[in-house]
């Protein structure tokens, strides 16, 4: 505590210099806190607006079917029985080698029914989607997404063409818009949708018993309402065993917003972190000047009994205090700026506030910068020989 007071006095002895030195840290913290707070406040507002419109679908996975496997017909029965449910589509995946002319590649196959289209909000560009009749006859038809069509066939409007999946010929009946989420573009895999019954024939791991399916709520019903109804229905089916299945709601848009939010936070955070590091170099620079200026003082302190460690700690604390002061000012200015922005956007649904965790991170980061960039000058001070330091400059 005493050393912090001493450090504050040394800093106070040279206010102008201290202020200029801290400017780097202040701007760094300002950039970090304001940018991250703006981004996450904006995405928060958008997300809450989006989710007030309603979530999109439910997923169910069956873990223990109690000897009564779920079949395609059951799904249709449930849709008919539950007014809150507009559609249910089974969902199974497999991987196959897709081939068209000389082009070939690994394709992820989704075994689905016609309901999948509605539930997942797919959009046809060309042709038709999978129909009830395709399921009944396990017909060899498939729907490709746009990117897959371009990759495999060479052009997007390729309905009517025939491709081979694991050597079996499939007719392309339709093309849907590609799911352009970050994850799928990352994996850049090819995707084809085929009737669930056709997948049973193609893949050894998919059977007539359905273990995963999607549920879409009806117009005018919310996802939680559909979830409650389906839960009751499934409990009846599986002897009131809650562990037999798992039902969960997925809000695709919310998930996408979360991803955007974290991507932007990381991006802006790293830019701001760089400016903080630059600020840290400024601190190191000025600490080196300070150490040289105070060579004589260091000599006196050593002569009257200060150890290596005492001097090291003294200058280290000074660097850290300088950083933390800059950090505190930066946070204060960020708060002020966010207040002003909030006033400007008042009346809209946006609201800006200081994000607690980014404040915490900037405090931790500033502290580390103070220690890391203060260590070298402090060590230089501590290593001075008392006689050399005493005779420095007279």
């Amino acid at each position: 505590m005493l050393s912090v007071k001493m450090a504050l006095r040394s800093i106070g002895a040279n206010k102008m210099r201290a202020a200029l030195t801290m400017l780097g840290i202040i701007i760094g913290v300002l950039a970090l806190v304001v940018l991250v707070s703006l981004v996450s406040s904006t995405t928060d507002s958008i997300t809450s607006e989006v989710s007030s419109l309603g979530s999109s679908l439910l997923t169910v996975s069956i873990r223990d079917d109690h000897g009564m496997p779920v079949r395609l017909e059951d799904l249709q029965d449930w849709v008919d029985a539950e007014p809150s449910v507009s559609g249910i589509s089974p969902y199974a995946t497999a991987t196959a080698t897709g081939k068209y002319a000389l082009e070939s590649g690994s394709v992820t196959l989704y075994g689905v029914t016609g309901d999948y289209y509605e539930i997942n909000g797919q959009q046809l560009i060309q042709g038709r989607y999978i129909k009830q009749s395709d399921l009944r006859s396990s017909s060899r038809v498939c729907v490709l997404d746009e990117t897959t069509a371009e990759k495999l066939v060479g052009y997007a409007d390729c309905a009517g063409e025939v491709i081979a999946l694991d050597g079996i010929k499939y007719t392309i009946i339709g093309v849907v818009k590609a799911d352009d989420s970050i994850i799928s573009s990352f994996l850049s895999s090819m995707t084809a949708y085929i009737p669930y019954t056709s997948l049973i024939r193609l893949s050894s791991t998919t059977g007539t018993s359905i273990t995963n399916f999607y549920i879409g709520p009806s117009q005018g019903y919310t996802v939680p309402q559909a979830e409650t109804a389906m839960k009751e229905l499934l409990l009846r089916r599986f002897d009131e065993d809650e562990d037999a299945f798992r039902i969960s709601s997925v809000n695709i848009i919310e998930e996408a917003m979360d991803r955007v939010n974290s991507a932007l936070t990381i991006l802006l955070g790293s830019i701001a972190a760089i400016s903080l590091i630059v600020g840290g170099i400024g601190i190191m620079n000025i600490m080196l000047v300070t150490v040289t200026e105070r060579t004589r003082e260091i000599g006196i302190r050593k002569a009257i009994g200060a150890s290596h460690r005492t001097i090291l700690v003294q200058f280290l604390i000074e660097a850290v205090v300088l950083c933390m002061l800059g950090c505190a000012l930066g946070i204060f200015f960020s708060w002020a700026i966010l207040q002003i922005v909030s006033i400007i956007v008042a009346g809209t649904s946006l609201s800006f506030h200081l994000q607690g965790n980014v404040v915490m991170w900037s405090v931790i980061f500033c502290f580390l910068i103070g220690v890391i960039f203060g260590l070298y000058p402090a060590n230089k001070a501590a290593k001075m020989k008392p006689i050399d330091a005493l005779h420095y400059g007279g």
Partner: protein
Amino acid sequence: MIELRDVSKIYQIGDERVHALDHANLHVYPHEFVSVIGPSGSGKSTLMNIIGCLDTADAGEYLLDGTPIEAYSENALARVRSRKIGFVFQSFNLIPKLSAEENVELPLIYQGVKKAERTKRVREALERVGLERRAKHQPTELSGGQQQRVAIARALVTQPSLILADEPTGNLDSHTSREIMDMFRELHEQGNTIVLITHDNDIARQAKRIVHILDGRLTEVSG
């Protein structure tokens, strides 16, 4: 108390080897007041640095309170300075940003003395040099004589085995010099061991014992 046996210190200046101390022998007994006199360049400062544990000898043996010093590490030397030696310098060497009492308090902080005890001992030390009224003043607000008295208080406050004064009156006028020298005599009468280094015969004569230093060699002048 202090025992120098054949202590040598050699500086290499360009091609020349300078014997700053040449087989110096010196005994200082407890409660003695010794002055070391010599012209500039005689090795005075080197002697003072070695006695004050600011530097170590190249050859020979130095015993302080019966313990040999040369083998000590940098940190151990800092500890010896902190516990056993009180310095008074020609240019006072107070820390300008700190008040008189804070300057006096500093060696106690380095020793790890508790706050209440520190406050008490700082007040006593400032009373002994007659500056209790100036405790809150910054060095720049004090006259040269007052600054030197603060420096003496700082040297006294740890109750060191030895007070080492290097030209303590060098920057003071003759009137203030007398005051400071009176103070040293008084400290000696109270039982402190003092080694005073000077080039001034009048100042040196105030000590009980005078040692001459020339070209790094010590000779006893009077007892």
